[in-house]
């Protein structure tokens, strides 16, 4: 069982001054007055006062906006995660989005005798190394493309693109045939048991194959493997890097060149990658390296970037829609033709929002960073 008391202490929640800055910057609080981070802390800081029927704890987006603004860096998202874990252990039911299909999928992926056939989409041109020293962690993109096919998401394009770029840069990597979901969404929604099963299965696979370096395609996998796995499993994982951090330095030093694309683009910072892991520059460097591409910034970008409006496949309501609508409005206000993001989930959420904006036609194309960068390579042989 988990030691909630120690975990809560580690979030520094007792340093909370009640100043309310978190609530001022919180995107959910702006649209949903019921959700007030400051009051949630006040209500739940003492264990005896906790009410596990409190629906507010499921609305947090884990966007780290509060953490960014907090003078004492009180880890409010982590506090929410602990409350959710406690609520689940007391039998509270969560409102899963998409009919709970993603939760079921993650639990199925934790199965012991699982032998996935998840690489059927792999294009023939991708060169894989023989060894497993360096591994490219694909994430759940193959599943997303099937599950969200009706939204016309193309998250695999990003994965294929990142692999093409790595191939072009002559960085060797291999793929795991039976890679499982990193489990971050289960952890965030409080299902620690489910997360541990997935994390352990992935860890066993890394250890069995002697993986020394993992390059990740999805920001959530990156956070999970880099931060959550060592913390939760208590053992060190191989070196974990995000693909932009590998490619961007090569572009800067002239060892790799991208091609030409005439686009006006904006970059949407995924919360986990930006505020969570402070990767703001390398994705922008990649975009700037595309010849002919004009990069403009949205009203809220980098540390202040607005979240895509939904997280961990729980609780998607009116407030979430309004956040997404605001983000799309910010994007459209720049006059750019393409919104580029490097997170498959941001792509899914924003495309879903675009589709459901009361009949308004989508004005901006949403694309994956790696997919776009790799597409530019085609103009350069």
């Amino acid at each position: 069982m988990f030691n909630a008391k120690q975990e809560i202490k580690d979030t520094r929640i007792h340093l909370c001054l009640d100043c309310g800055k978190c609530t001022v910057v919180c995107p959910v609080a702006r649209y949903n007055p019921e959700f007030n981070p400051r009051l949630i802390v006040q209500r739940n800081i003492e264990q005896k006062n906790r009410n596990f029927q409190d629906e507010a704890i499921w609305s947090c987006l884990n966007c780290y906006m509060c953490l960014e603004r907090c003078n004492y860096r009180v880890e409010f998202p982590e506090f929410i995660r602990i409350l959710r874990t406690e609520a689940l252990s007391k039998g509270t039911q969560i409102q899963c989005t998409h009919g709970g299909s993603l939760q079921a999928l993650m639990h199925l992926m934790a199965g012991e005798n699982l032998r996935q056939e998840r690489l059927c989409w792999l294009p023939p041109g991708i060169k894989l190394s023989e060894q497993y020293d360096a591994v490219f962690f694909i994430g759940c993109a193959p599943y997303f493309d099937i599950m969200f096919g009706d939204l016309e998401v193309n998250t695999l394009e990003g994965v294929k693109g990142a692999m093409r770029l790595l191939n072009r840069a002559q960085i060797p990597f291999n793929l795991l045939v039976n890679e499982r979901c990193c489990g971050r969404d289960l952890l965030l929604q409080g299902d620690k048991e489910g997360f541990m099963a997935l994390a352990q299965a992935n860890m066993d696979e890394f250890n069995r194959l002697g993986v020394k370096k993992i390059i990740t395609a999805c920001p959530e996998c990156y956070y999970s493997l880099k931060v959550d796995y060592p913390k939760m499993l208590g053992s060190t994982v191989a070196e974990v890097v995000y693909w932009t951090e590998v490619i961007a330095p090569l572009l800067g030093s002239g060892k790799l060149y991208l091609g030409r694309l005439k686009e006006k683009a904006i970059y949407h910072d995924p919360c986990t990658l930006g505020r969570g892991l402070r990767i703001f520059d390398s994705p922008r460097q990649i975009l700037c390296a595309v010849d002919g591409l004009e990069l403009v910034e949205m009203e809220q970008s980098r540390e202040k970037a607005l979240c895509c409006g939904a997280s961990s496949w729980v609780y998607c309501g009116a407030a979430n829609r309004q956040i997404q609508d605001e983000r799309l409005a910010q994007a459209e206000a720049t006059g750019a033709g393409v919104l580029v993001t490097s997170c498959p989930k941001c792509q899914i959420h924003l495309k879903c929002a675009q589709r459901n904006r009361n009949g308004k036609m989508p004005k901006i194309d949403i694309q994956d960073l790696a997919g776009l960068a790799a597409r530019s390579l085609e103009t350069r042989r």
Partner: protein
Amino acid sequence: MSRTVADIVVFTCNWDGLSCIEAAAQSRLNYPPSVKVVRVSCLSRVHSGLILKAFELGAGGVMLLGCESDSCYYEKEDRFNVKEYEKTRGVLGLLGLGTDRLRLARLPRGDGDSFVKQVTNFIAEMEQADNRIEMRNV
């Protein structure tokens, strides 16, 4: 989570689908007792979340039993359930469980014989698939 072929979940619509199961019972036709029937108003109610949940709980196969395409009581077309069916089959394929573990059957009203035939065939096929997996694992 142990997966046994015997556990087959049948999501059936309240109309022609259920009438087949009732007809089978009235004509005293036998089919394995491990077939679990879940009644829903219309097959369009069954989305990928429910189907995957059945597999998560250990079902060996899931059958969607509904009215024939043109005789649905609610809709003129079956676009929704076909879409969910295709989507879930894709996911099952990636998971390595096999796309055949999900079956869509559309039967005319009161056709108990066909229902029993389809469900027993389905179980036999699942058993064969499991044997193949065991062989592969040895």
